[in-house]
């Protein structure tokens, strides 16, 4: 005799649409806040870099004083920091990311040409991650203990191999020796295979583990016994009941992973000589190309915000229990 019974109170709430709208509005506001915060933090961080922006910009060149003056005037580098900052924010508000100091073209344009390649890589990695993890988790879940140990051992090993090293090994074997995949470039699908594998290795290992444990945990749930007692097959059980539950923690995990893939892509893009935002950022940071760095940071933050909104939406769709709030 316990007191677990839950009263079903008649729910008298505002219409669903209003509620959804309010949630969306609050989220949008939060997202804008995060973006402004990220832009602000990056701006002042970059200003804290040693050496004046002008010097870094003109490093190792023999620009004449006239050119120097021109650069300072054009990028308003002689204004006070705060003037620069607010001018920058003001432009941001109108959707103008400014002009890259070094590349001499609009930040948005510079990022825009590289972005598709990075998104391609991230998307391929995500697809690979999801497909491989579901397959591996389902294979791994029903096994005996020693097989499970083996699976988790291999996962541990994969997580322990640095992705850039894995990338080098893949390149050496499959490009340089076997010539199956191109060694450089990012123009076509075959150029996507090895980078996606190198980048997906860690997520696959992590997601597989979470998914498999989710499967095992769900298989222990009472409703699984109830479903089995209705005489449904194991396949139907997994498809209709178990996978959805196991997928719940994975959706939020995938949100995190997508965010971090943008960071991981930097390394992979370097290893595989791929086009992408990662390499753009690395050189922008080295060149103290402030508008470009902030642009990339904002982009990454936007991806993060969007992905997390998607993850919440997915959770909302998958799990009716979250719809109450």
């Amino acid at each position, binding site marked *: 005799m316990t007191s677990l*019974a*839950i009263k079903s109170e008649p729910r008298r*709430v505002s219409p669903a649409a209003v509620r959804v709208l309010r949630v969306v509005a609050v989220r949008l506001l939060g997202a804008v806040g995060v973006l402004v915060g990220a832009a602000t933090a990056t701006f002042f961080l970059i200003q804290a870099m040693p050496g004046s922006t002008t010097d870094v910009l003109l490093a190792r060149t023999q620009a004449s004083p006239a050119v120097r003056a021109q650069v300072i005037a054009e990028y308003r580098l002689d204004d006070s920091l705060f003037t620069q900052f607010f001018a920058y924010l003001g432009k941001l508000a109108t959707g103008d990311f400014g002009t890259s100091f070094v590349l001499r073209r609009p930040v948005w344009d510079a990022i825009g040409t590289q972005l598709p390649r990075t998104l391609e890589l991230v998307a391929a990695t995500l697809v690979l991650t999801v497909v491989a993890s579901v397959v591996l988790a389902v294979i791994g879940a029903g096994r005996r203990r020693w097989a499970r140990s083996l699976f988790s051992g291999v996962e541990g090993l994969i997580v322990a191999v640095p992705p850039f090293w894995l990338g080098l090994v893949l390149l050496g074997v499959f490009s340089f020796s076997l010539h199956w995949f191109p060694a450089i470039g990012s123009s076509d699908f075959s150029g996507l295979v090895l980078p996606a594998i190198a980048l997906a290795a860690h997520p696959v290992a992590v997601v597989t583990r979470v998914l498999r444990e989710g499967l095992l945990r769900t298989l222990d749930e009472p409703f699984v016994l109830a479903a089995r007692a*209705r005489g449904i097959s194991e396949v139907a059980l997994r498809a209709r*009941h178990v996978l959805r539950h196991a997928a719940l923690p994975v959706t939020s995990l995938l949100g995190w992973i997508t965010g971090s893939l943008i960071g991981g892509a930097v390394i992979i893009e370097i290893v595989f000589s791929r086009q992408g935002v990662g390499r753009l950022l690395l050189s922008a940071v080295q060149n103290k190309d402030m508008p470009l760095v902030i642009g990339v940071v904002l982009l990454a933050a936007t991806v993060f915000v969007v992905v997390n909104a998607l993850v919440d939406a997915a959770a909302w769709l998958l799990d*009716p229990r979250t719809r109450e709030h």
Partner: protein
Amino acid sequence: MSPLVRVRDLVVAFGGRPAVRGVSFDVERGQVVALVGESGSGKSVTARSLLGLCGRGAVVEADELAFDGLDLRSLGERQWRGLRGRRVGLVAQDALGSLDPLRRVGAEVAEPLREHRIVDRVRPEVLRLLADAGVPEPEVRERQWSHQLSGGLRQRALIATALAARPELLIADEPTTALDATVQKQVLGLLRAKAAAGTALLLISHDLAVVADLADYVHVMKDGAVVEHGVPADVLTNPRHPYTRALLNAVPTAERRGRGLSGTIPALDQPDRRVPGRELITVTDVVKRYRVRGRPPITAAAGVSFTVRAGETLGIVGESGSGKSTVGRMLLGLVAPDSGAVEFDGVPWSARAGAERRAARRRIQMIYQDPLASFDPRYTGRQIVTEANPDPERVAELLRLVGLAESQVDRPARELSGGQRQRLAIARALAADPAVIVCDEPVSALDVSIQAQVLDVLVDAQRRLGVAYVFISHDLGVVHHIADRVLVMRDGAVVESGSATAVLAEPRHQYTKDLVAAVPGTVLRQAQSVLKPG
């Protein structure tokens, strides 16, 4: 005609450790057979062996294990699936978790219909099944998810899924454990109707009262074996096995008031000499409302007034959500009332602050339903009590008083059994030398026999130390057994109060009458009245 189910010498082992050892029973068509026994005695495993769902790693052996002449020992997976749901329905033990929380209730009910292709048009049948199972507004409920249903509704929906494919045998594993007395009554009624309509029923319960009212035949299990069986009237009035006898004795009821239940504390057989003292707590007209965004406010206390005297036990009863816990927490000053006052020792909580408030706190302690949750997980039993009273001698004395052995208290509390944990909680509460202890459902999670021991310890401590109890429970039997005075609450209001015997034996308010009437165990009560004590 052979019985529908025939089990002979069933042995189920997990990793070499037998959980069921040599159980034999029959279930005839249209018969209600009950398995009773304490937690872990093997009831569920026994029942699930009829579905081939004993769990991962179970080794099932039997001389005979047959359903309608079909030898279950040699079934393949496909044949099992033909049996499950279609011929044998299961209402699994954990009803609240037995509906997939991610699927609509209707889909769950429809699943066996589709799986076994029972009907062409599924939806009308689902609605009919839900209505049949006593679910009001089936059109609405069908589209809801399980978390939107109350425990009772979930239990009924689950029964609907189990009955959907019209099985010949229904296994109901603890179908009313989590339910209020009133809801419990409805569910039991539903099962009784099904049995009357010809479905054989294998009923599992730890609650003798439930079993006694419903079953045609009872098997009492202990440690994986059936220790006694027979028709309920026989088993309950004339228990042959000491275990059955102890089990019966342990049930707290009005009739057993003032006596020891467990037989472990002889002192309780002495007459009770308590006289209630001065007024310790005065509650005047307290109101408490909870506001949750997007919902109308909930009134958890609507003008409650009462007093607690030194050394007495005040019982608070009422169904779930009626505000019992809220009132209890207000007594401790943990929840401040919206209006009205709670005075302790003549001073309202609102007038106490800082060190004075903390000092007053020590004089009114609490015992929770889940004792483990109230212990710091890093602490051993002794540390837990020592935190309340640094004097090691006093700690040792109290531990002895509640019946905890020295060897048990230097381990982390989670390694103790449920009953031991609750004794530890009592020891801690007593260690602060309180005048009052608020006990919020202290025995609801315990087996009858363990419950008996804990109740005995509480009564014993009160007699020795003169501490007053505010005893919150939804179990009328327990309250009747322990309380001097009783408050009956409903929707935050006190609907009736007075001496325990007066209120519970001759209820005046209609709500109280319903509560009392809903308590199962007519057969049991009759049996107990003829049972010899000891």
